[in-house]
């Protein structure tokens, strides 16, 4: 991997360093809330403290990398694709959360992902997704007795 140090610090890298520091703070805060009787050796607090300390150190390390702009060049990004896939996942969570069942939920995820990869035929993709989800449901839930969320449609099967 070739990186060429640039003059300007890398904003994305700075954000990563900040998030790592925040994570370390969250672990510290969470660990101090544990109520414990003293025991031999180390209790459940030692490891979180060590992890938090290491995260804080790495936040500094990543900050240095970002300061030197020592990050690989990033390609331009297609926000539409990301919104579509994440939208598909949110739809999946919503449909399953509201009791819509596995098959419609994954059919929507299938169509959204296919659209993110450039497909335009939404209806056809929904149908393919539906068929795939139905086949997967029959194979895994009926044949292999896996518990998959059931909605009105799945109860008919």
């Amino acid at each position: 991997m070739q990186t060429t140090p640039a003059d300007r610090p890398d904003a994305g890298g700075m954000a990563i360093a900040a998030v790592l520091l925040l994570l370390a703070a969250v672990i510290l805060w969470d660990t101090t809330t544990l109520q414990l009787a003293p025991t031999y050796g180390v209790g459940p607090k030692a490891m979180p403290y060590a992890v938090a300390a290491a995260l804080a150190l790495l936040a500094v390390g990543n900050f240095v990398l970002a300061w030197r702009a020592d990050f690989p060049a990033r390609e331009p990004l297609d926000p539409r694709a990301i919104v579509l896939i994440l939208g598909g996942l949110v739809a999946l969570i919503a449909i399953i959360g509201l009791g819509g069942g596995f098959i419609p939920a994954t059919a929507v995820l299938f169509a959204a992902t296919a659209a993110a990869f450039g497909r335009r035929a939404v209806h056809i993709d929904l149908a393919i997704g539906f068929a795939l989800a139905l086949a997967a449901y029959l194979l895994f839930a009926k044949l292999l007795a896996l518990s998959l969320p059931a909605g009105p449609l799945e109860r008919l099967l």
Partner: protein
Amino acid sequence: MDALNSLLQGLAIAAQPINLLYALIGVLLGTTVGVLPGIGPALTVALLLPVTFKLDPAGSLIMFAGIYYGGMYGGSTTAILINTPGESASLATALEGNKMAKAGRGGPALATAAIGSFVAGTLATAGIVFLAPWLVEIAINFGPEDYFALMCVAFITVSATFGSSPVRGLTSLLIGLTLGLVGIDKLTGQARLAFGVPELLDGVEVTTLAVGLFAVGEALYVASRRNHQEERVEPVRGSLWMTAQDWSRSWKPWLRGTLFGFPIGALPAGGAEIPTFLSYATERRLAKHPEEFGKGAIEGVAGPEAANNASAAGTLVPLLTLGLPTSATAAMMLAGFQQYGLNPGPLLFAERPDLVWGLIASLFIANAMLLVLNLPLVGLWVRLLAIPRPWLYAGILVFAAMGTIAAKPSVVELSLLAVFGVLGFLMRRFDYPIAPVVVGLILGPVAEAQLRRALQIGLGDPLVLVQSPMSATLLCIALIALVAPFVLKGMARFKADRDY
């Protein structure tokens, strides 16, 4: 010969029809996911964990091992025919293999890859047979402090020593260790980092993390940077048979590749990329016609392919004898053992020799199956590459969602899947390695338990960690492995400065 006796008993188990069937399913699935871009053996094993929960442990582990080996074979087909390797372990193969395919020598390239994989896989599996009992003898005397030190070595080497940047690798590892803290502490019953969410009390599900990072993260990354050109699949032209000259140019690279791959895989160093590139560089230096390199030299396919299969077999040595995973797939296999309450290590060799030796013996069988599947049937696998990318990735996400819900049916779990997907996307975009996260999640809690056990035995005296010569040595190695990349980098910079 004790090892040979055990192996024969293992063969009897592996040759049972039901286990042969599991091995066949494993190698078929493994080759499929190896051929398909965007999905690899680690993800496949992760998706299968919830499905196999109720199956026979020996059978499913045999299947997982078949997937691991099959993935290595299948990856080479994609690398040779469309220059976009399915696995990072096949990067070196693509260099020469794709050139050969373009020059109409795709057949011999596929043949030398498949036969080389078979030779290397068989020799390296034989290596497991002889190395494993010997390591078990040593490991049987390990105390908790030795295990803790060993895991420190694995943590450092997997994340820091061999990656492109030690800071990025360690950051990935620490994310995994943080996720490993989530949930109820097994020794005291205290909830850590659960934030009052009941679903988090059981900890982060390995399946959810791996599927989020590998499947959702990969889909987001590929979709976000998709340039609209189609990849070109080179048709397999030329006979699949290798000429006498091809054979004479291939057999030495196969053996050298095995010699690189097996030890590097077996050391807790992780990754198949290093031995494949070492093998590529060596073949290039030793070749009689170095000018052919870059234009399609068969040595450049034979060596790296042998190396990547041998290293896959090598990673099974620390996994089986010490419970130490050194690659993402090995980490998922460890999760597979754990879901049956089995802990790989010297005790498993003593308590369940049938399972361990059945698994090792099945590797020989899987290798033979793969040779047959990949040579005459290569045309079938090539057709998989014709699946349109939108449907392929959409299908992967459907199965990702299914695997996650099957592991733990809750909306919280699906939300975690989406979060880990975004994490995987960002890590790819900013060039952080993914495997250390998975290794950290799986090995972190084990390392913590060993550390606390060691300190309890030593009544809280931290010096107990360096009292055994073994653990002291290992901790020194870990320290050196941690510091070395920084020092070397500093020296390189110093030199560069002087050159101005």
